[in-house]
């Protein structure tokens, strides 16, 4: 795009300021993970690595991380399946109420988490409870999947709109059965959209506190819940900073990988 030099510079500076705004608090988290003070007094008067050592030994954080990853994967898988199905239905068919579907799908993400949380909680108790299925990991996954569907749906829908049905027609034309067409053509074509949508779904689930609070059963401590429980205890709060710092660093891996695998589209992922 043709922009004057000063305009380019202004934008570049703005981007720099924006990134600073985004990263200064994260940097603070990193610094505070070395802050000798338990409640992160500023400026830090002594630096220590003991929180990192303590975090390393902290079983609860590790367990919570595993729980979160499992919940995130579960929710993501469900979101991938359901979101893809709806996207196909909406893109490939005309049916009564099609316009309402997109509204229905965004609803769980658009309504405040606390509403989703208490609705699912009371429904779960009155329906599933009667069936003898208590809340646990499964209810967390259900809760998360409900608001994650939209990310997959939107990514896949956009991809389907862009690719059209020609390639699938071509595949059938060349003799491929519907399942072969899906395996050889459709899936590879929507793979990067699935990756982008899935990544965002996972990220949403991974960081969700409110819905989790209301849907988690006994013994299910996801990382945000663990953080919630520990951040408010001065003995533990510094360890939380370590965990967060580690998360930030680790998160570059899936994001980067997804970008590599999916090409630029994954980056432009539709939230």
């Amino acid at each position, binding site marked *: 795009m043709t922009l004057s030099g000063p305009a380019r510079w202004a934008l570049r500076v703005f981007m720099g300021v924006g990134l600073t705004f985004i990263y200064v608090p994260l940097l603070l988290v990193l610094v505070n993970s070395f802050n000798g003070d338990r409640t992160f007094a500023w400026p830090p008067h002594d630096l220590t690595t003991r929180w990192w050592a303590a975090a390393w030994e902290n079983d609860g954080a590790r367990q919570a991380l595993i729980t979160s990853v499992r919940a995130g994967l579960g929710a993501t898988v469900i979101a991938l399946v359901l979101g893809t199905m709806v996207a196909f239905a909406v893109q490939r068919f005309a049916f009564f109420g099609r316009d309402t579907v997109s509204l229905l799908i965004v609803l769980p993400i658009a309504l405040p988490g606390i509403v989703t949380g208490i609705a699912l909680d009371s429904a779960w108790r009155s329906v599933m409870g009667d069936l003898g299925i208590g809340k646990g990991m499964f209810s967390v996954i259900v809760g998360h999947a409900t608001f994650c569907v939209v990310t997959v749906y939107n990514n896949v829908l956009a991809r389907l709109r862009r690719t059209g049905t020609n390639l699938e027609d071509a595949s059938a034309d060349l003799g491929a059965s519907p399942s072969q067409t899906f395996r050889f053509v459709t899936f590879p074509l929507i793979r990067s959209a699935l990756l982008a949508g899935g990544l965002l779904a996972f990220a949403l689930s991974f960081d969700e506190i409110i819905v989790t609070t209301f849907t988690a059963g006994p013994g299910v401590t996801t990382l945000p819940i663990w953080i919630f429980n*520990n*951040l408010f205890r001065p003995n533990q709060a510094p360890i939380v900073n370590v965990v967060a710092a580690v998360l930030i660093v680790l998160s570059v891996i899936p994001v980067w990988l997804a970008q590599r695998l999916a090409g630029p589209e994954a980056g432009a992922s539709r939230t």
Partner: protein
Amino acid sequence: GCGGGGDSGGTGSGPGGMPVPKVDKLTALGAGEGAVNVVSWAGYVEDGSTDKSVDWVTPFEKETGCQVNNKVAATSDEMVTLMKTGDYDVVSASGDASLRLIYGGDVAPVNTDLVANYKDIFDGLKNKTWNSVDGVAYGVPHGRGANLLMYRTDTVKPAPTSWGAVFDPNSPYRGKITAYDSPIYIADAALYLMKTQPDLGIKNPYALDDKQFQASVDLLKEQNKMIGEYWSDYTKEVQAFKSGNSVIGTSWQVIANLTKADKTPVEAILPSEGATGWSDTWMISSKAKHPNCGYLWMNHIVSPKANAQVAEWFGEAPANKLSCGETTDKNHCTTFHAEDESYFDQVWYWTTPLARCVDGRTDVTCKDYSAWTQAWTTIKG
């Protein structure tokens, strides 16, 4: 009409026609079910995962074969909600939750004969209004503490002695006053009014009729103008005192200790009016799927050693007399006034306000907790 005592056994109805759902208590201890689901305050159930040296769960699991699944609740309200699900066996309920659980039929009376360590618990904690109904015990006391007045010694001069320091509309600390963020805090105002405005006739800060309630709420609305922030978790309060965002307000002993440990000049006192406070009680669910493990847990958590560990880790006074000999810090019981009954005589433990006045008045209806909750919303504005 409003009757006095009812009959025992958790049957019949409470005063004011309030029925206590009939729930049977366990009569004999059987074999453990292999697991127990626990709702607790953060720090009450530690299995070494937060700090390797802090672990009273693993020995319990080894000994009884009951696997402990712990769910930390942030507030009393959350505890009530969680217990209503029926997914949990035991809960460390504070007094502002316990009655709700009892009257909700969510917890069962406790057969104290099946809890061997019950006999060593301070008498001052047994059969209180918040953990029993009509002499029937609904739980095993866990520990206690007072809501203290904490202040920065370098800025708050002279040192306060009265809650008036946080209610005085002309306070020089306007904007730097903090208060506990919960409807139960209305009791702190009521306590203050009980001492400063005797004509209101407040006898128990948890039993407020319309007029008394309104006076308390009005006081808090005035106070709100001076509040910097309310606190509900203790990292937040420690940090606020350290940075100077808050210089005076309610606190817990443990918070005071932590703040001091971080070299912030603070002091916490029990003001002349006395204070509100809490005494937590382990209760067992009326729908417990693991009642035997639940009883085993209740017995374990008030055992001298475990109770001492909890009290030290969390920062409160233990419930078991023998625990004072088990603490690593030999001064622990002194610091937390564990054996000082006269100290705790000035403490009004959190009790769920009910429509049936908990002070025994029968000629008026008191404000129940949901009214307190809605009022709290109004106070914060």
